């Protein structure tokens, strides 16, 4: 539920949290990213950083420059200035990410978990099944049939949390319980209503459906795209997965290695929340690709 007015709470001496509602409806994230975009322009002196998520933003501030109470007042004014969420227009790039769906490495992760921790169905089959899709091939068609909204870049460096924008491609699935102890780098996972990509190998709970050959961050800043910014994605970007085969996956890996890979990003578009919502209603959520 969206709150009538956002909820503010302090988090220690130099953070504050703004919460727009208490569920995961995408409107709340649009508000969080709308506020984040304004704060990044430096409109409040003393704000040092913003950490947006599904329905909230954590703001870091310098208490030598602004008090908590003044910060809250300024944030309230900004939120009032945004007004209706439908009026928000956000900068939003489209980032095309090649994806090898149903790959052997994530298949191995699932098999390993099944053998060592808890027996489970092959994740893509499981996700297809509980979403009433015919099979994993349709899952690939549905998952790659939509733009995925980057809700937040968070948790570990460069890791995107994403939500499908096309209602015909909404998927939902329970996460692993207990979690996996190991996930391969670049794995595409779905869990709850979200999609994520593992930017570091390690534990995880999302259902694994494929793998990407490109890095989403690079601390060594080898490739030109990481020179100014070490992570590829921003919150409010839209990600489009491009299904590829193993041969192309290996080709892209080589081009990443020698630095000649051309990242496919378009940066001329704006995202209108109102126009998106009208369109989403018009297509409905019953049809599937």
């Amino acid at each position, binding site marked *: 539920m969206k709150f009538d007015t956002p909820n503010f709470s302090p*988090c220690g001496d130099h953070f504050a949290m703004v919460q727009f509602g208490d569920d995961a409806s995408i409107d709340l994230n649009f508000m969080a990213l709308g506020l984040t975009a304004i704060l990044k322009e430096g409109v409040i002196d003393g704000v*040092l950083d913003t950490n947006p998520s599904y329905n909230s933003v954590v703001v870091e501030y310098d208490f030598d420059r602004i008090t908590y109470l003044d910060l809250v007042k300024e944030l309230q004014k900004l939120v009032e200035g945004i007004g209706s969420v439908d009026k928000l227009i956000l900068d939003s790039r489209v980032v095309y990410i090649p994806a090898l769906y149903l790959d052997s490495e994530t298949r191995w992760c699932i098999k390993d978990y099944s053998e060592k921790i808890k027996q489970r169905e092959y994740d893509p089959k499981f996700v297809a099944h509980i979403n009433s899709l015919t099979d994993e091939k349709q899952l690939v068609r549905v998952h790659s049939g939509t733009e995925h909204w980057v809700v937040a870049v968070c*948790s570990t460096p460069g890791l995107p949390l994403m939500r499908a924008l096309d209602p015909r491609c909404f998927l939902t699935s329970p996460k692993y319980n207990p979690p996996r102890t190991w996930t391969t780098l670049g794995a595409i996972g779905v869990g709850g209503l979200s999609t994520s990509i593992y930017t570091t190998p390690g534990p995880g709970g999302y259902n694994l459906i494929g793998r990407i050959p490109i890095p989403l961050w690079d601390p060594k800043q080898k490739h030109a795209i990481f020179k100014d910014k070490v992570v590829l994605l921003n919150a409010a970007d839209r990600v489009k997965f491009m299904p590829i085969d193993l041969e192309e996956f290996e080709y892209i890996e080589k081009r990443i290695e020698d630095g000649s890979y051309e990242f496919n990003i378009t940066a001329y578009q704006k995202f209108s929340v109102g126009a998106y919502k009208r369109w989403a209603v018009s297509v409905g959520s019953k049809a599937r690709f």
Partner: protein
Amino acid sequence: MFEVLKPGLETCIQDYPGRVGAFGMGFPPSGPLDHWSFRLANILVGNSPGQPALECQFIGPSLCFKKSNIIAICGSDMQPTLDGKNVPLWESIQVHSGQVLELKSAIRGARSYIAFSGGGIDVPEFLGSCSTFVLGQCGGFEGRPIKKGDIISSDKNESNSRSGLRIMENCRPIIAKNRQWKINVCAGPNDDWIDEYSYKTFLSSDWKVSPKSNRVGFRLEGPEWTFSDKATNKAPENGSDPSNTIDHGYPIGAVNLCGQTPIVLLNDTLTLGGFINPFTVPSSEFWKFGQSQPSDIYNFNLVSVEEAQAEAKFISQLCKEDSMEFTK
């Protein structure tokens, strides 16, 4: 400039306040846990308080100097020696090329800071900071703790620093002898997810530091938590455990409740997750985590945001030249 003879236990380059402005990209700030001792070490050698210096954890390194330098060691007592002779903490010390500085195990506290004159350690900045983030393999010296054979540059700038300066005793942090710490804490952001009983219990109980504590977070052992209606009666997307919530940003200092285990999130934390944060430890208290060891006991003391900020300002005031005196 110095060569690493023995690295110690995950000795890393840090600066203060670390990487600011990178939470939204998934990077925590890193930086020294005990930023009070860290800043004092820097001012002793004539640097500004935040310059890159070494954070030594539990077991210190051995370093061979390749150039003359003024250094200072502050924080935990790791029994430092220079060419085998004891050297004091909290003082600026002249070292010469070829001399060996050796730190051993911490006999009190847990983290010791070595600062170098001439602007501190000279490594490239990553996202505006020289702080090492080991999990992210970035910052500091090649994104990792120092290791044997590393040659590290530390004297980029001219310096008019001098030996024989000391931090006055009343300006230093006092490392608890009885290993029991009073730690200030602010309520929120999710204090309304626990019930009144649990709120009071948190503030009145002994919390023991688990051995599974590090720069990512300090796990605490103590009484059971009980929850309010907000935690037990919520939309299903929040998750099934009372301590689960829809993923939200994690500020450092958050007392992050994972099921029944509180973890105080520190400088190398994950930046987001799906557990509630009923309380948050303010920055003035972080040095206490830096100087505590497993099995130490914490007692939390509720303060207002304004009181917490006043305390942080008070410590910053102490990290200035007025806190120094001549040894002779």
